[in-house]
């Protein structure tokens, strides 16, 4: 696909939001991934042109951050957290089950272009470990079987919801949200649930608080 005139306008709109326009590069690259399911060379060149920097500078950014992909992701991005906590609580098994179900390994697209699988780092959702993400929406407390079931339902085209509420759309739609977060979806689903607040509740009940930082010990 080529970057349309409309997308160019949106890219310019992002660039105009910052005092130093090149600060807009991160959302712009997400926008590129929302029209193509990857950061294409064309997308890199258009960003460079709009920001008045070189394509090499854009490439450096696009290859540094792992959320930018240089080959087509396909319809859905599947992430499995395999950091310490999730890994120990079953994340590694979830990853293996998905890898077997999809026939692909880390950072690979499935042959039918439907899925992309990735080991991901801690999503700050350890409370609900092990955690899986679908198009960067949380699937909390998964098991190998529930994770494969999610993929099966997506493969059949059924509607799937995140365990926190929002309906799963697709990778490109999420990328659009990452470029323009104020799309009205921010209050879909829950941000904080009781399980996340257990520690805080216990601390309050027992009158615990963190020690204050001694002055001068930077």
């Amino acid at each position, binding site marked *: 696909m080529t970057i349309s005139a409309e997308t160019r306008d949106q890219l310019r709109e992002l660039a105009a939001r910052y005092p130093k326009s090149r600060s807009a590069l991160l959302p712009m690259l997400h926008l590129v991934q929302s029209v193509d399911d990857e950061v294409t060379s064309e997308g*890199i*060149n258009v960003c460079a042109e709009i920001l008045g920097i*070189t394509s*090499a*500078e854009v*490439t450096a950014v696009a290859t540094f951050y792992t959320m930018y992909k240089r080959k087509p992701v396909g319809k859905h991005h599947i992430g499995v957290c395999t950091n310490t906590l999730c890994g120990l609580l079953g994340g590694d098994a979830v990853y293996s089950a998905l890898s077997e179900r999809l026939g692909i390994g880390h950072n690979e697209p499935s042959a039918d272009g439907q899925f992309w699988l990735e080991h991901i780092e801690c999503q700050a959702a350890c409370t609900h470990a092990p955690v899986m993400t679908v198009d960067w929406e949380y699937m909390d407390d998964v098991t190998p079987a529930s994770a494969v079931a999610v993929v099966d339902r997506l493969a059949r085209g059924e509607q799937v919801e995140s365990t926190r509420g929002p309906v799963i759309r697709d990778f490109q739609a999420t990328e659009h949200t990452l470029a323009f977060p104020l799309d009205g979806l921010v209050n879909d689903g829950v941000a904080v649930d009781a399980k996340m607040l257990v520690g805080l509740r216990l601390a309050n009940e027992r009158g615990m608080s963190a020690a204050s930082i001694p002055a001068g010990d930077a």
Partner: protein
Amino acid sequence: MTITSDAGSDLTPQVEMVTVVVDGVAIEIPKGTLVIRAAELLGIEIPRFCDHPLLEPVAACRMCLVDIEGVPKPQPACAQVVSEGMQVRTQLTSPVARDAQEGVMEFLLLNHPLDCPVCDKGGECPLQNQAMTAGRPESRFDEVKRTFPKPINVSAQILLDRERCVSCARCTRFAEQIAGDPMLELLERGANQQVGTAVDQPFDSYFSGNTVQICPVGALTSAAYRFRSRPFDLVSVPTTCEHCASGCSLRTDHRRGTVTRRLAWDEPAVNEEWNCDKGRFAFTYQEQGRVTTPLIREDGQLRVASWPEALDFAARGLSAASSHGVLVGGRSTVEDSYAYARFARVALKTDNIDFRVRDSSDEEAQFLRSAVAGTAVRTTYETLEQAPVVLLIAFEPEDESPIVFLRLRKAARGGTRVYAVGPVATRGLAKLSGTLIPAKPGAEPAVLAELAEQVRAELQAPGAVIMVGERIAGIQGGATAVLQLAQATGAALTWVPRRAGERGALDAGALAGLLPGGRPLTEDSARAAVAAAWGVDSLPATVGLAGAELLAAARDGAIGALITGGVELGDLADQSLGRAGLEAAGFVVALENHHSAITELADVVFPVAVVTEKAGTFMNWEGRPRPFAQTFKDALVMSDAVVLGMLAKAMNIAVGASDVAGIRQELGALGAWTGPRAERPNVPAGPVAEGAHLVATWRALIDNGVMQEGEPYLAATAHLVAATVSATTAGALGNPESVTVTGPLGSVTVPLEIGAVIDGVVCLPLNSPGCVLYRDLGVRSGQAVTIKGAL
């Protein structure tokens, strides 16, 4: 350290000194100095890869770790600044530092291929050397190393072996900070981190070769030199670049009578440690297409002749003629130009001489005689760097004097404001954060006269500089307007010619009306002094013919004999005039190192030396002499000066010294002129041409120049040859992909580019592949052409 020069403030910098101790030795140094520099001052060498004194610190390689008292972990000496009382211990006195360095070296070597035996850098490699001095004797790594397909092209010229890279970011910092061409970047992350370019945008920087030189390993190599030799087999000679008036110090490496490579040499006052790719890579011309013996014309054909025969033939031809002219091509050394200047006045008794065998004007000659020749050095690279404001006219530094460009960029990064008067805000101007003062080609004098009050005021600040290129000759009233502006504002005016020999030729007196040292020929005392030095009773007293007038006189049969030295017909805007002049001149003696259109027209051809075969001096735009030694000591080819000396002898005329030392002595004894100077030009501005599309043009640094022949990799990094117009102009043409541009002599078809060009102007390279304006179109800057979308 930068000395700030705020108007009116005390210029002496207030430097706060601190005392630090390195390995038990105390030293007092300016606050803010890096630890690695402090150690250097004490003769203590800390190993390093990413550190480079001309690049901003990044502490990327971690090789320079040292132990600083009171700091828990070893610190990078290349990024740590000294503070009062700091106690630094290097690998020489601290086991902690030594351990840290050994650890870093071990890491750096984990994935390094250790292919030193086939690596260009082997023998002069900081990694090789420092692995010996700062590494463990044995590697403990027995895993599989990371490999990459090798090498990849980051440009046609520059190759990258990624597995050799130590990710020091010298190349990428050079590209961004020094050249302003951040087309080379560190890509990917972690173990995959690697240098690279965007997929479809090679590292076509005019300065790309410097990255090969500063890469501390053999990761970056040049296609031209890769696998050519080992550094320890080479003989190195310090030389001066012959390509432009920047005057870079170079190092020429040779082996078995052949130049294998050229490097930028360290000359803080001129090129710092950089040069451009033309100076680095364009030297194969020295060996190709050479004239090897004297030639004389017999029955219309050139034939090989012995030196005595050819000298006799030339001497008789010259003596028989009653009027003469001398043309010197702008690439001669000071010594050779002086020999031509002296030969013209003493042996040929003529003042018909010019070094400007290119677009020139009488106004320009007056400007050069009155305001440039033999003047004391006022603007230098250093003052440029300190200048509050620099105004550029008829001058595109990146193409026409690349090291001036780099210094201007350094200045601009330090706060110097740059203005350019002209029709196009070039990429080069953008890299100088410069501002365009728009002027249609030909309208520059009017624009200068009406310069905004604010710019005028800025130019009145102490240290302000006006730089004018040799293209001012093509703008009627240009030199006059520039002189007036300089006078009115007090800004220092400096002339930056393109070719390496022009400034020296001017000061040597190779221009009608001018004797060595800027002496006006019309001043009796000047003439008398020079006549005495040259051992003759008198010198021609009337100003001779120069430029187009000299050629026109030759065409009209008024010049009996011409001597040419390093002349290229293609340099002339009016090539038919040049050709007609040479054809009509009764007798032509050519001193040339290469066969060319000139040797085809000459009656006698003498082979002369290229820069590697002689010693000499180029005078750069600053007026700074840049002497160089003979690279090939046993070369048998003679310099122009020696050949002219023999020719004079054959004519039974004594002309004085012909050797470099003797000529330098003669010139030195004459010294510079301090008496009254020639009249300044006073030429009204010319009309701006009529027409929908006026041409703006200059020579690209990398183009069809004859001294770039035989270097295909260099040629492949040239900038895109295109017609650049404004968006409005392009729209009016229907936004075609390519356009056909037509002038009186014909057309060229080139891609159309949209750029920051003023409406109604088309910007074209003057002498690039597929676009040779003088020959193909017959137009020069400021003339009208027609443009049509190409099919």
